């Protein structure tokens, strides 16, 4: 095993960040409203300097009101979901684990819907409820997934699938009680949608995102050891229970964060960590940060496609990730089997 130096981790992350940056620049230029590259650069520059009155109102609307917020939200959601996916995969030692499959996304969605019914306008209520929903689902699935005191991987996945379909049924039930207009918005949001207003300052969400990813990252050498088995890791001096608790809480927080602003977007949490493993190996010290940036790249790409392929209409980004994600996943699976 070649040593993994911080310099190597940083350089790979910097390379991925550069890819993300290029993608953001390209994505900023694509849209129904035509703006030349020069206009975009000038508008961005004026925005950065705070010269709001110097730029045309429509440029300001398009760049700072529509495109940048969407990209910022996409980066947040992508990073959160794929890091949560990588975390769940490590904990459960199961390559199929992801927030969607384990029912965590559905739990977060249910929490958000309940908060929308009970307190429609309280800021942060959606996020809080989504986190509670995600964490409660993880706790129940974890409890159901145990067999004879040990976590059984197959039982756990089954428990997750059962929880997901049960929670979806509850969501369907609640949705029939909601009036027509809210229902349509909700149905869209469930498919995964980056257009809706998060109703909370993005900086709070970014702050939580970084804290949660940072916490998971600090456990990554322990996660490496736990890949060989919990018992073995325990013998090597890893405080397994503490690591599990940290990762469960952080992964639930990340899922709740993502679902509360964008609905349930599937496949990202499953796919991105796998792609990163194939590219950079299974070391979690590298996998956690690359998954975060890779997830951001994937969602920004998916959303850019979602708002261009059927222009002038838009697809929900969740439909786009499933459309692109499922074939890629099957391809990766077949290639691995060969």
């Amino acid at each position: 095993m070649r040593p993994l130096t911080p310099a190597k981790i940083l350089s790979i992350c910097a390379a991925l960040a550069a890819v993300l940056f290029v993608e953001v620049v390209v994505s900023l230029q694509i849209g129904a409203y035509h703006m030349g590259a020069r206009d975009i650069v000038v508008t961005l520059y004026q925005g950065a300097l705070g010269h709001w009155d110097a730029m045309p109102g429509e440029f300001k609307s398009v760049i700072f009101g529509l495109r940048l917020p969407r990209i910022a939200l996409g980066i947040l959601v992508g990073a959160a979901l794929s890091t949560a996916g990588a975390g769940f995969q490590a904990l459960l030692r199961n390559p199929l684990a992801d927030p969607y499959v384990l029912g965590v996304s559905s739990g977060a969605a249910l929490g958000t819907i309940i908060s929308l019914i009970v307190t429609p306008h309280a800021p942060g209520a959606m996020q809080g409820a989504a986190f509670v929903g995600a964490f409660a689902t993880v706790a129940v699935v974890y409890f159901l997934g145990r067999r004879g005191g040990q976590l059984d991987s197959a039982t756990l996945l089954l428990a997750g699938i059962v929880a997901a379909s049960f929670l979806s049924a509850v969501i369907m039930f609640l949705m029939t009680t909601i009036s027509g207009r809210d229902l349509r918005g909700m149905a869209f949001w469930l498919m995964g949608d980056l257009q809706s207003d998060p109703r909370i300052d993005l900086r709070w969400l970014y702050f939580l995102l970084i804290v949660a990813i940072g916490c998971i990252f600090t456990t990554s050498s322990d996660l490496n050891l736990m890949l060989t088995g919990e018992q073995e890791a325990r013998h090597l001096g890893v405080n397994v229970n503490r690591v599990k608790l940290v990762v469960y809480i952080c992964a639930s927080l990340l899922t709740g964060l993502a679902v509360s602003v964008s609905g349930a977007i599937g496949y990202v949490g499953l796919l991105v960590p796998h792609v990163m493993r194939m590219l950079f190996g299974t070391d979690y010290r590298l996998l956690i940060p690359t998954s975060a940036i890779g997830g951001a790249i994937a969602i920004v790409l998916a959303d850019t496609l979602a708002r261009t392929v059927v222009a002038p209409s838009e697809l929900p980004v969740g439909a786009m990730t499933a459309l692109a994600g499922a074939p890629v996943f099957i391809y990766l699976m077949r290639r691995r089997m060969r």
Partner: protein
Amino acid sequence: MGMILASRVQLKLLSAAMVALITCVMPTFARVGDIFNSRQSAAGPQDSRKATSQADTKIVTDGTGRSVAIPIHVQRVVSLAPNLTETVYALGLEDKLVGDTTYCDTPAAAKEKPHIGAPLTPSLEAIVALHPDLVLATAINRWETVEAITKLGIPVYTVEPHTVRDMLQSISSLADVMGAHEQGVALVAKLQGTLDNLQTGLRDKPLVHVLFVVWEDPLITIGQNTFIADALRWSGAESVIISKQDWPQISMEEVLRLEPDYIVLTSNHSGTDDTDQVRDLRARGVWNQIEAVKLGRIVVVGEEVTRPAPGLVEVIVQLAHGLHPEIFGTEQKHSRLENRGWESDAGRLVACVR
């Protein structure tokens, strides 16, 4: 293994470095949140500047009770739904319509306008690109869309007609908002006249019990609070299904039990003839058990019935003719069809098989 454990110290440093790095990058995107917040406060001076350059604005209350500041002289309007587009054309204000949705097909000329996407999934950028000074929305649009457009500084006027009377009311309010009060009064008077004539004809007649089929398989019908239910009442009919849900799914057993006098279908736009549609229905096993189907009491109405727009009145008249053949002769029906002017061929009553 020793190497991995040793590197845990490095790892702590690295995670600190990562957090520091991302915190540096963060403000770039976090500014967006700032801008959103500052937009609200900055909207004041900016709007007033806009207001002075664009003469004056007036504050009106729209159909959802929101106060909207709209220009007194509206010049460029984007419609977010087919019924709004149809109303704008019916008022003769199509010159002010600069964009509509991909679903706007009535009248045919509406298809030629620049499209901003589907009513549920419009592209906000495409709307901005058309430089509208007013956007019209209705019940089929999402709240999120209305909120997002408002946030971009474009006024959105929403109408939400739930009954035929609401629909007439919405025509005059849309006319007023677009500065065409007289056209609105004239159109509403004309439509009201048609409805009044119909009510004179239907006076003292018992309501016909119908099953309105929204979708055949699974069988979906209308609830009591939809404007289609109201339109049925205007045409001297009543849905056999009483439901608080807007689009309830029901079982065939229930239909057999309730024994509707007539089955009302909406014509699908897939190009098949409406008589084919009726034949398809009769070919299905269970449907044949229904008395109304056995007797051929099936009425097919145009898709206009699903749109709270001026064309709805025409459909109500045609529905009344189809459901009350003992009152209205078929002659009158055909003469009406020719006098429709701006309406498309979609609002026709095509098959009344018996």
